[in-house]
């Protein structure tokens, strides 16, 4: 803990979650969670289902607003309490800086791959068709989907859909990328192509917060791993410690069960 305190004085956190608390009625799903992510850092959040990890991730762009605590991106508070119109204006701007990738891709089925990637840049950044196309081509090239630019989502495999979804998020040039179980809905043989894209982003020092069940991926890519259970961060640390030598019994138990499930 001391180590981390020192770290914080060195550098202001890029994403700063302070005392995050979330309840649905009497059910408390997040209990006073603190998470600081430095620029360029890659943090994985692991834990059993219902542990609150997705809720925490979705609180970062206020998709699931917190009931207590604060979320900051650089020097801007994200979860502000503002009158409706002002809040909408504020959150629409903030969200442009935070890319999000969903478990079920959520591509727009009525638009082509090109349309999916260019929609937001055209609407929000005032890009012309030509500029938006150039941008889309660059982003799709990066995820290896350029040759499918005129396909519709229904014509793509799950892995391809997810790569397009990543390109769609990247097209807004976000400062942070949030991955909400990005590979959980994929057939096992399609997981790798998405992991490769995420690794590529990691090499480019994109700040990423990743909710995942892929322990080996988390271990190879992340700077830091958080283990959550029942709405609290049970343990956190660098992946080599978290996966090889965790201190908490709950972490050990989770990993034992999980790894057993992954490699029978």
């Amino acid at each position, binding site marked *: 803990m001391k180590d981390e305190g020192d770290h914080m004085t060195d550098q202001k956190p890029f994403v700063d979650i302070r005392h995050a608390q979330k309840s649905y009625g009497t059910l408390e799903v997040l209990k006073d969670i603190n998470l600081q992510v430095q620029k360029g850092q890659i943090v994985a959040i692991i834990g059993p289902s219902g542990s609150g990890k997705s809720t925490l991730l979705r609180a970062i762009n206020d*998709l699931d607003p917190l009931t207590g605590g604060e979320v900051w991106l650089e020097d801007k508070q994200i979860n502000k309490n503002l009158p409706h119109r002002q809040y909408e204006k504020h959150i629409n701007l903030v969200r442009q800086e935070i890319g999000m990738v969903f478990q079920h891709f959520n*591509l*727009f*089925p*009525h638009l082509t791959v090109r349309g999916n990637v260019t929609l937001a840049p055209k*609407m929000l950044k005032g890009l012309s068709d030509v500029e938006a196309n150039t941008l889309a081509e660059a982003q799709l090239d990066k995820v290896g989907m350029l040759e499918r630019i005129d396909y519709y989502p*229904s014509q793509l495999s799950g892995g391809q859909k997810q790569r397009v979804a990543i390109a769609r998020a990247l097209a807004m040039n976000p400062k942070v990328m949030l991955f909400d179980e990005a590979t959980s809905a994929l057939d096992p043989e399609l997981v790798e192509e998405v992991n490769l894209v995420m690794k590529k982003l990691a090499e480019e020092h994109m700040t990423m917060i990743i909710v995942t069940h892929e322990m080996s991926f988390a271990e190879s890519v992340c700077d830091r791993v958080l283990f959550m259970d029942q709405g609290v961060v049970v343990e956190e640390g660098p992946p080599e410690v978290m996966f090889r030598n965790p201190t908490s019994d709950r972490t050990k138990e989770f990993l034992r069960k999980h790894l057993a499930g992954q490699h029978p």
Partner: protein
Amino acid sequence: MQRVFPFFLEAAWITVLLSVLTTILGLIFGAIGASARMSRFALFRFLGAAYVSVFRGTPALIQLFILYFGGPQIGIQLDAFQAAVIGLGINAGAYMAETMRGAIIAIDKGQIEAARTVGLSRFQTMRYVVLPQAMRLMIRPLGVNINAMIKATALVAAISVVELTYTAQRFIGSTYKPFEMFLIAGVLYMIIIYITGQAVSWLDRKARIN
């Protein structure tokens, strides 16, 4: 017999005209009603819900009578055709509002989340992500509403609009052939509905994604 045909054709034209105008008005009222029911503001939601339940919860014939016969008492003077279009249009709008709302709420929440997380506003999300998908979903059920509404145009015979049903009744007196007269009207209704149905199917196929 032959001398009644021109009258039936003219009456069929009136039924078509009524149907088209009522559909247009119904779509407009439906869109307003659906928007109201999904509004952020409780007052609009209440008004939308009230509109839907009043006009779906009472007979269209009573609504037409109130408008046409009762209207003058409260200063609304309409001729029979105007009353028919407005009355049926408002009635159809109540059904169409529910159809539209149903199609909109059927769109996966993930679509809205994906649009909002890239920074699109509520309006942009509706306009560019939800509605284009919902419109495709609502074509067929709106076709069902229109089908029901075309048949409901028969009611306006009761406020003496000279459409198919009225014309059939009118010639019973001179021909003494109610069977034939109503049969002619029925066949003409069926032709109108068949063509409408084909048009709806064509639209639906054309709008389908891929």
